């Protein structure tokens, strides 16, 4: 089983969610995060003092998926989240074992 993690721009959340739903994904977990990367942060000036805010608001999505579906899902994410501008984010995959659905105790493929 795979855990697909992606960092995207917040305003893309609705689109990506919809696209994943269309692609048959039944569950997602979303976290508000702060990203630091090539996309520059910004400067805020309060009473003449500059504060450099290095971090950019991003959204992290985690999707558990069958091994067979992982590449397809990644494809959907990449396609939908892309704006072509710096800061679009990343996707990556890790192996996840022993997935359990708490409600039923179902395992792995049945649990996602």
């Amino acid at each position, binding site marked *: 089983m795979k855990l697909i993690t992606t960092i995207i721009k917040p305003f893309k959340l609705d689109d990506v969610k919809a696209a994943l739903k269309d692609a048959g994904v039944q569950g997602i977990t979303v976290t508000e995060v702060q990203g630091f990367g090539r996309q520059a942060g910004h400067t805020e*000036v*309060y*009473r*003449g*003092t500059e*504060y450099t805010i290095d971090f950019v608001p991003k959204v992290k999505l985690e999707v558990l998926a069958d091994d067979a579906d992982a590449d397809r899902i990644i494809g959907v994410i990449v396609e939908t989240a892309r704006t072509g501008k710096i800061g679009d984010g990343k996707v990556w995959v890790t192996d996840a074992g022993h997935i359990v659905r708490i409600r039923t105790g179902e395992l792995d493929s049945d649990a996602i």
Partner: protein
Amino acid sequence: MDTGDAAWVMVSAALVLFMTPGLALFYGGMDRTKNVLNMLMMNFWCLLIVPVVWVVVGYSLSGQNPADFDNKFLGSLDFIGLKGMGIGGEDGGALLITMVFLGMFAVITPALISGAVADRMKFSAWAIFVPVWLLLVFVPVFKWVYGGWLGSRGSQDFAGGTAIHVNAGIAALAMVLVIGKRKGWPQEGHPPHNMPMVMLGTGILWFGWFGFNAGSALGASGTAIQAFLNTFVAAAAAGLAWAVTEKLRDGHFTNLGAASGIVAGLVAITPGAGFVSGMSPLYIGLIAGVVCCFAVGLKTKFGYDDALDVVGVHMVGGLVGSLLIGFFSSPDYFGTENKAGLFEGGGLGLLGEQALANGATLIYSFVVTTLIALALKHTIGIRVDDETEQNGLDLAEHAETAYHGTN
């Protein structure tokens, strides 16, 4: 007491009371999440301790009872516990409500200082500082300016530019020099944790300031109306001036710029609120907005860590407004016992008196505040330890956390 006057002074007193929670939010919003409750509590502490000290002894020492008008440096102990004062006399309570009204000023004056010492002062030290400073600094300066040696020489201070804002502003400077800088300042800084809170505080301050200034006429008179008008125009003009200055200098109209300018304008019009008319409040506001916008930059230049700009806004704004009386004071409307300013046909005399009154206040307040701060530092300590400063004062000093999300 005339009912209209009584109504106006009571309303004004209530408005000034409301300013201290407003100030707490104004400061608290600018502070960081981990220190906001400490900031609020420093302000609320003034709301708790000062009224008690004021009715017990502060008012009496402030020499504002007519029986003490001959004293030039301090009041007396004749009115401790409001002895002999009641609503039964022929003034119908006028003296009593004036005492309450002044008590509101006594509350907010030390509260102003809290913005400077934010993020690092021990609360126990603050708890002691407030009543001590009130009696040793606020009370005498207040007497000097109102009915004391400075006031009788001819300086003017309608609603507390010198006695309150310059006084609190210079005291704030003395405090931060003794307490020292926040860790990491000025390399690191921290933007306001909640700007809407700052703007709410600004709204409450402006609203309350109508009581502060127009209430200082102590009746619903023409002077009150003029002070009301001046408070309206000067605050707007200063907010505009600060916001436009920032736009030109930094590229944006900011909320904090608008808010800071409004407060700077309110401070600057305070001393002259009942002495200037026509377009003078507009000019005073515009000047104060620009000057204070630059004055808040002095702390980085000179290296004193005045966290939320009490010096740059209240001391500088108060000085600007107080000195400008020397130019704009117009005795026509306000009675000839008031001197005219330079632009209103007077000479330089009034300006000199204004300079003297502020100079004396600056020196006295700075020296005595420094001594109080040093005494605290060398006894119970004035500064929290590094760990408390790092983790935030709310938890260590008050065992409270401002926001609890997951529950």
